[in-house]
């Protein structure tokens, strides 16, 4: 892990999913540290931590189906925040429902990716995310 690299915030309640996601990114040579929020409440609590001086992530991977606050609620709070709404949010979820997709974009998500069941496919996605959001994309400072 490289301390100079900005972290990535993963919001995921299932430990296996969180673990597999971390592994997939590790295998695709993503070096940034991955911080984990295991429910909506924890995710929102990060806003205070950033205020307190913790490093702001370069992007957030957000599951929609979460205990306590739902992913959409987290998304709404983030995107309504005057300071942190600029953080890119990539929704990474099992749901392919039109309603979820529409709502997520309405609330201001930057990307919506349906989580595949197959690990191989997920690996491909992880590579694409890394390439796009860490190398190609220029985020607001």
């Amino acid at each position, binding site marked *: 892990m490289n301390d100079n690299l900005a972290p990535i915030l993963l919001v995921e309640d*299932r430990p*296996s*999913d969180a673990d*597999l996601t971390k*592994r997939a990114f590790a295998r695709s040579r993503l070096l940034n540290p991955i911080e984990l929020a295991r429910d909506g409440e924890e995710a929102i609590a990060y806003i205070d931590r950033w205020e307190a001086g913790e490093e702001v992530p370069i992007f957030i991977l957000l599951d929609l*189906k979460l205990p306590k606050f739902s992913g959409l609620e987290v998304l709404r709070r983030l995107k309504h925040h005057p300071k942190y709404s600029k953080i890119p949010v990539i929704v990474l979820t*099992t*749901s*392919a*429902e*039109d309603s979820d997709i529409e709502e997520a974009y309405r609330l201001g998500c930057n990307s919506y990716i349906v*989580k*595949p*069941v*197959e*690990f*191989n496919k*997920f690996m491909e996605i992880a590579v694409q995310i890394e390439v796009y959001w860490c190398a190609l994309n220029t985020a607001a400072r």
Partner: protein
Amino acid sequence: MMVVISDRETPLVRTSHIPDSRFETFQSILRLRGLLPLLLWVIGLAILFSPASLHAQSSDRTHRILVLYWDNKDFPGNVKFDESFKAVLQQSPNSRNLEYYPEYMETTRFPGKRQDFLHDYLRQKYEGRSIDVVVATADIPLNFLLQYRADLFPNSPIVFLATTSRGKETLSAGPGITGIIHQSTYRETLELALKLHPNTKQLFVISGSPERDKRYETAARRELSEFTSKVEIIYLTDLPLNELISRTASLPSNSIALYVWQQSVNEQGKLLETFEVLARIAPTASVPIYGMGTGNLGQGIVGGYLQGPDTNGAKLAEITLRILSGTHPQDIGVEGAPKVPMFDWRQLQRWGISEENLPPGSFIGFRVLTFWHQYKWYIAGILTLSLLQTLFIVVLLVERSRRRRARRALAQLNAELEERIATRTAALNNKTRELETFAYSVAHDLKAPLRGIDGYSRLLLEDYFEQLDEEGRSFLKTIHTSTEEMAQLIDDLLEYSRLERRELKSDRIELASLVDTVVEQTRREGSEEQVNFVININGESIVGDANAIHQALRNYVDNAVKFSRKVSAPRIEISSTETPKSVVLSVRDNGVGFDMQYHDRIFNIFQRLNSIEDYPGTGVGLAIVRKSMERMGGRAWAESELGRGATFYLEIPKSLEGEFSG
């Protein structure tokens, strides 16, 4: 003083001298057939002397009737007698052979004269002229006739009207005499009046003569003695005209009056006859007045059992005719003079007396034909019709308002029903949505652990490849395949449920480009197979949900590819035909086909005809097709023959139908 000489000897009808036609006919028969058999002659005699012929013979002769009146010709009683007597004669079948000779004794005009002169006059007048019946209209003529009978009319029967006191005398006067005897009708009349006025408390008896002799009061007291217990009888006797008028105008209620006989002198000093006096008092009388003389009927009395010259004249004429037709006077019993219940219709109306209460056989005179009486049936008819019409209108109005009420109630009920349906539908929709949300959550939740299974089995295979033997590796592959299947199944189920839930759009779709897209996708994904696609699409365009139609066609084509994989030269033909309301899209393959008995079942969810090993699939694809077609108001079906390929059809309506809406 005026002398009126009566010479009314003229017969009612002059005798005609036409011979009896029957007799003449008979004679002519005799003349024509001089040699008629004796039998015919006997028959002829029999006819000639039969009673009918005798009657004909006797009626052929002229009959003379002499009526002797006691007063002058113009005396009202005589006039009435004369009229009714002649009226009865005229009604007789032999009236033309009757000669009527009225004679007037005029004893009141010539009170002192001896009757010898009259006797001489009559004897000379009727010498050589036989009289068949002599009629005496009162006691005085009867006495005269009885006195001079032998000299004047020795063989003539006498028919008389006499007072009671004269009865026995006359009857014993010898054969050939009969007649009627005057009897008073006080009792009958009063009984009748009391019946018509049952609440009567007082009876006022009106009588009087210029001589003030109380003759009539005396007679009335005698006749009415039996009624004194029933009513109080007050006699208004010999009152001057003015006083009588004022008294009768103020008689108490619950009383009636009986008018007996009253002569009075009027304001100019002229003697008023009894009926004239009645005519003066009746109009202002406060109670109904009953009487006993026919002369008073029409002058103001309600009625009563009436007697008078008219009824008597008619009766004596009847008796006369009987005698003339051959009845012996001795065989005709002496009877009381007729008493007829007679009434004045106007007085019945005035005092509100119903005709139904009158005795049977009553005569009602002076009917006034009012407009109502003349036209009452027309009026009643019109009124009935109007009433019926009104009734009809009322019925119609009631019916109309009932209908209105019913319609309002119906409308209200409809509104309630609609509201209830809306509520239920909303509840049902809620339930459905809940169920769908549940299915959707379950499907998603099922996928999450699958990811773990697949992810870790994959990691195991990759990171621990060396530690695993061949069998262990194959197990992991099976885990991977099963996970894939499971994931596909969940995806298909999600798709199926999403189709149920999602709102369909109305897009304009060009069939040709849709088919091209689907074929292109299929080719790209199934690269290892070389399927020959034949496309026969005309330039049809339809309106529908592009996603749903795309998905349906995609499923058909995938299916066709899958089931023609094992054929040497797979060929898939996509065609379209147009009907007036829809476009039918068909996907035909030359694959394994299916047994037609399953043609409908294959569209059911999870329905498979082949083993999953030979033809992998979840069994949801065709169910999705049918569902989406149903939602769009279209149809999905298939035709096939085992081993000879299959054709799958989509019928898509051209315009918006069914559940499908913009």
